[in-house]
C-alpha cells in the first residue's frame, strides 16, 4: 500500500512560503499532541439539544450516543440489524405473550463524574434512573417532544401523563415519584415494564437515544442548562458548557471511568477482509477525543476532507462526479491511490409520490381509480430519476419497505410479482384505458385534466417535477406542480387538500412495521397516514403484525400487506438513497451506518499516519 502527498509546483511553493514568512505568525497548536483525536463532520449547524428527552434529529442522536446509553444497542458489525444488551446484563425476558418485559441492569454502570453528585463522583446507575428518565417524556416542561414513542404503549403511562399535566396546570410540581401502573421497580438492578398490548417494536425503541438514561441529580441541579451539560454513563463525556459552541462544533472526551467494555466479536464474513475484526475483544473506547465539526455548507467540509483535516465525510451532491465513476459506480483512481476507502450505505428510505385516497379524482377503491393510480406509477421512470438526481447510486424498489428490512423484495430488480413500477408506457396506457381514458393516435390520453401535485420547494424538487412531467407526457398524464415550503406541505396534507404530493419517510427503527403503519386507517391525516388509505383487511393485518414475533411467519405477513398496498396503489414508488462515505486510511474500525450512532466508541485513528493533516 502506498500513500501519496500532493506535491506543489515550485512557483506555488515559493509564493506560499513567502506569504507564510510575511505573516510571521504561528499556525495553531493542538491542545495535546499525544491524544488520539477523531474529527467528524456533520452537515448541519449542529444539534439543537443534548438532552435526549428533548432531542429528535439524527444530529442529536449522533452526539447524544457518545455520552448517553440506552438499555439496548445495535450489534455494530452484524447485518441485518440485531440488538444486544448495552447497560443490561442480558436481553430482557418477555412474558405474558409479549406484554410483560423484565430487565436486569449491569452492576458496573456508573454516571460520569460531575458536581451534581456528592464529592463530584459519579454514582452507580440503578433501576429508578431508567424509570425517571422515561417519565421525563411525560413532563410538559419538555413539550412532549418524544411522547409519540411511548403514547399508549406502557400500561398507565398515559393516565400518569394526564394526571401530572393537570397538576402542572394547577401550578403544582410534576411528581416524578408518583407510580405508573406498568413501571415496576423490583430492586436497584431489576425492573419490569408492562405494555398495554404486546409490541415487538418496543425492543427497537429501547435502543433509540430518546430512551437514554440520565441521573435525576443532574437534571435537578443544572435545570435548563442540563441540555448543555450532559451527564450520562457513556464512553465519552462533556467537560463543560464551553465544549459545545453553537453552530461551530462540539468536543467530547474519553470517559476515564468507563466500565470494562469490548470491541464486538460477532461480525459478517466480509468484515474480516475489511480489517474490522482486528480489534475484537479489546477495551473501548480507543480515541481520547471526538471533535464534531458542524458544516451548514458542504463546500468547506469537502475542502477540509480533501485537505486531510477531517477523518471521514459523506460525499456532497456536487462532488459525486469528481469522486465516483458514473459507469462503474466505483471510486475514481486518484482517490483510490490515496488509499481512501468508499462505503455505500443504503438508507432506510422510502421516497414516494402519494395520492390522497379521499380525493374525488385520484382517490377511491374502485377498479378504475386503482388503474388510474397504477398508470401514474407505470409512467414514472424511477431509474432515470435515480441517474439524474442521485448519480445512479440510489435504489428503486417496489412497495413501501426499504432494502435491509423484512418484506423488501430482495431480487435483482427489487420487484414484486404484481409490480407496477415504471417506466412501462404500454402498460400505463392499458391502465389508463381501464380508468376510462381514451388513448389518441399519439399514444396520449385524450382530455386528461391536470392534477395538482404538491411538493416542498427545493432545487431538487424542480428537477423532479420536470422529469415527472416529461415522463407523464409520454402517455398524456398532466400535473400542475404546486411548490410550497415544507410546513405548508404538511399543512395541506394534514387537511387532506392535496390530491397528489411528494413525500419521503426515513424509518425510525429497522422494522417494516414502521413503514406499514403509514397506511393504517386510524392514523389518517393529520396522523402519519397522509394518503388517508383505509382498508379493513390491511388494518386488521397491521394490528396483528404489531404483536407477532419476528420469524418467517411474520415476514410472509408483511409481504402480504406490501402486496395489498401495491395492488391498491395509494402511492407511486419507491426509491431509497444511498449515502456514500469516504474514509481516510488512518481511520480504523469504521463500518458506516445511519441507522444507529453508538459506534464512535469503536473508532480508532493512526495519529502517526504521514498524510493525516493537522
Amino acid at each position, binding site marked *: 500500500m502506498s500513500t501519496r502527498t500532493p506535491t506543489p509546483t515550485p512557483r506555488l511553493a515559493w509564493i506560499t512560503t513567502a506569504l507564510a514568512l510575511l505573516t510571521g*505568525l504561528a499556525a495553531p497548536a493542538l*491542545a495535546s499532541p499525544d491524544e488520539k483525536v477523531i474529527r467528524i463532520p456533520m452537515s448541519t449547524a449542529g444539534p439543537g439539544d443534548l*438532552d435526549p428527552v428533548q432531542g429528535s434529529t439524527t444530529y442529536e442522536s449522533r452526539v447524544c450516543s457518545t455520552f448517553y446509553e440506552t438499555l439496548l444497542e445495535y450489534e455494530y458489525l452484524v447485518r441485518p440489524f440485531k440488538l444486544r444488551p448495552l447497560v443490561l446484563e442480558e436481553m430482557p425476558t418477555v412474558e405474558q405473550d409479549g406484554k410483560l418485559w423484565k430487565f436486569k441492569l449491569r452492576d458496573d454502570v456508573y454516571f460520569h463524574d460531575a458536581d451534581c453528585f456528592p464529592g463530584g463522583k459519579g454514582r452507580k446507575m440503578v433501576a429508578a434512573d431508567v424509570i425517571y428518565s422515561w417519565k421525563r417524556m411525560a413532563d410538559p416542561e419538555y413539550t412532549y417532544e418524544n411522547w409519540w414513542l411511548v403514547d399508549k404503549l406502557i400500561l398507565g403511562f398515559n393516565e400518569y401523563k394526564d394526571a401530572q399535566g393537570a397538576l402542572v396546570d394547577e401550578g403544582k410540581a410534576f411528581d416524578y415519584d408518583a407510580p405508573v401502573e406498568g413501571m415496576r421497580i423490583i430492586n436497584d438492578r431489576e425492573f419490569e415494564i408492562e405494555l398495554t398490548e404486546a409490541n415487538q417494536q418496543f425492543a427497537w425503541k429501547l435502543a433509540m437515544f430518546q430512551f437514554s438514561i440520565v441521573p435525576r441529580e443532574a437534571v435537578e441541579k443544572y435545570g435548563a442548562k442540563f441540555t448543555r451539560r450532559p451527564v450520562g454513563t457513556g464512553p465519552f463525556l462533556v467537560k463543560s458548557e464551553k465544549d459545545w459552541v453553537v453552530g*461551530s462544533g462540539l468536543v467530547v472526551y474519553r470517559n476515564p471511568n468507563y466500565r470494562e467494555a469490548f470491541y464486538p466479536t460477532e461480525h459478517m464474513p466480509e468484515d474480516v477482509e475489511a480489517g474490522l475484526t482486528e480489534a475484537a475483544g479489546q477495551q473501548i473506547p480507543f480515541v481520547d477525543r471526538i471533535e464534531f465539526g458542524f458544516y451548514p455548507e458542504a463546500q468547506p467540509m469537502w475542502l477540509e476532507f480533501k485537505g486531510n483535516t477531517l477523518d471521514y465525510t459523506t460525499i456532497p451532491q456536487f462532488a459525486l462526479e469528481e469522486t465516483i465513476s458514473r459507469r462503474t459506480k466505483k471510486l475514481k483512481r486518484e482517490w483510490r491511490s490515496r488509499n481512501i476507502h468508499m462505503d455505500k450505505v443504503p438508507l432506510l428510505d422510502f421516497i414516494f409520490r402519494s395520492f390522497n385516497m379521499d380525493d374525488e379524482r385520484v382517490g377511491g377503491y374502485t377498479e378504475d381509480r386503482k388503474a388510474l393510480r397504477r398508470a401514474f406509477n407505470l409512467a414514472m421512470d424511477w431509474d432515470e430519476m435515480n441517474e439524474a438526481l442521485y448519480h445512479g447510486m440510489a435504489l428503486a424498489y417496489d412497495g413501501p419497505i426499504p432494502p435491509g428490512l423484512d418484506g423488501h423484495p430482495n431480487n435483482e430488480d427489487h420487484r414484486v410479482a404484481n409490480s407496477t413500477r415504471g417506466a412501462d408506457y404500454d402498460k400505463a396506457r392499458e391502465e389508463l384505458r381501464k380508468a376510462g381514458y381514451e388513448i389518441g393516435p399519439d399514444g396520449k390520453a385524450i382530455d386528461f385534466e391536470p392534477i395538482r401535485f404538491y411538493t416542498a420547494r427545493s432545487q431538487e424538487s424542480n428537477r423532479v417535477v420536470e422529469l415527472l412531467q416529461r415522463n407523464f407526457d409520454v402517455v398524456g398524464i398532466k400535473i400542475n406542480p404546486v411548490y410550497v415550503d415544507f410546513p405548508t406541505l404538511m399543512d395541506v396534507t394534514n387537511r387532506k387538500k392535496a390530491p397528489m404530493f411528494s413525500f419521503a419517510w426515513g424509518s425510525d427503527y429497522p422494522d417494516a412495521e414502521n413503514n406499514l403503519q403509514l397506511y393504517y386507517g386510524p392514523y389518517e391525516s393529520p396522523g402519519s397516514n397522509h394518503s388517508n388509505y383505509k382498508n379493513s383487511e390491511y388494518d386488521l393485518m397491521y394490528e396483528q403484525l404489531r404483536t407477532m414475533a419476528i420469524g418467517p411467519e411474520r415476514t410472509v405477513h408483511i409481504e402480504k400487506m406490501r402486496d395489498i398496498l401495491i395492488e391498491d396503489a395509494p402511492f407511486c414508488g419507491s426509491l431509497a438513497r444511498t449515502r456514500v462515505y469516504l474514509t481516510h486510511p488512518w481511520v480504523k474500525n469504521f463500518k458506516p451506518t445511519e441507522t444507529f450512532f453508538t459506534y464512535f466508541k469503536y473508532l480508532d485513528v493512526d495519529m502517526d499516519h504521514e498524510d493525516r493533516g493537522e
Partner: protein
Amino acid sequence: MWGFIARKLIYNVPVYLGIILIVMLALRVQDPTLMKLGKNATPAQIESVSKSMGLDQPFVIQYFELLKNVVTFDFQEESWSHGGKSVGEMLKSSIPMSLAITVPTLGLSAIIGVCIALVAAYYRGRAVDRVLMIVAVLGMSISYLVYIIFGQFFGAFLPRQALGGENWPFEITGYGPLFLGEGATPMNWVSFYMLPVIIGLIVSLGYDTRFYRAVMVEESSRDYITTALAKGASKPKVIFVHMLKNAMIPIITRVMSTLPFLITGAVLMEIYFKIPGMGFQLINALTNLDFPVIQGFVAVLAAMFILTVIATDVLYALVDPRVRLS
C-alpha cells in the same frame, strides 16, 4: 453636546417604539407556538411553550417586557433551537465573533480605500486612475460567494496542501478555540479570522474606493483647492492635507452607516467559515423559526442602528463646524 445627544435620543424613542411594535406584530401574524410545534401539537404542548415565552400574556405586557429586556440588555428567554442557551447568552457570545471579522475589515477597508482614492484622485484621468477604477469595478462585480469559495480554496486549502498544515497560518474553516482547548491564544485569531478579513477587505475595497474617489474628485474641484495651489502649496500637500480633511464628512457617513452591519456580521462569511457570529445565528434562527432569538436579535439590531445614526450626527458636528449642535 450632551443636550444635543439627549434631544436626538428623545426624537428617536418613538421611532424605536414603532419599530418594536411592527416587529412584534409581524412575528405574531402566525402563532409562533404553532410554528414551533407544528399543527399536530397538543393543547398541553401549546400551553407549555406559550407560557415559557410569555405569549400567554396580553400583547401590551409582552411589548413592555421586550422593551425592558432591551434597556437592561437582559434576555432570559431560552432559544427554541439551541436548548439551554438564553437569547442574552447568544447575543453576548456571537457579537464578539462578528466584530472579530467586521471591525478589522471596516478599519482596513476605510484606510486603504481612502489611500487608493487619494492616489486615483491625484492621477485623475490618467492611466493609474483608470486602472485602479477598472480593478475596483471588477472587484465589485464578482459575487461575494465566489470570493469566499476561491478564498478558501486558494487562500487556505491549496497552500496547506502545498506546505503542509503546520506551515501555513490560515485554516480552511473553524472556530479555533473550541478545538484548541487550553492551547488557544489570541494569536489564533490570525489562523481563523485573518482569511475572512482579507476576503471581506477585497470585497469592500471595490465599493469603498469608487465612493471615496468620487468624494475626492468632487472635493478637488472646490475653490479652496484652486486657491491653495495658486498660493504655491504643493499638489501632494493640498490633496493629502487640505482635501482629505474636508472630505471627512462623507467618509464618516459611509463608515458610520456601515457600523450596524458590523454587528449583524458577514452572514455568508460566517456560514462558510463556521464562525458562530450574529449573522450566522440570526439566519439559523430564521431557518429554525426560533422566535425568541429572532425577536431579541432584531430588537437589539434596531437599537444599534438608531444609536449609530445618533453617533453619526454627533460626529458630523465634531468634524464640520458648519453643523451646529443646537
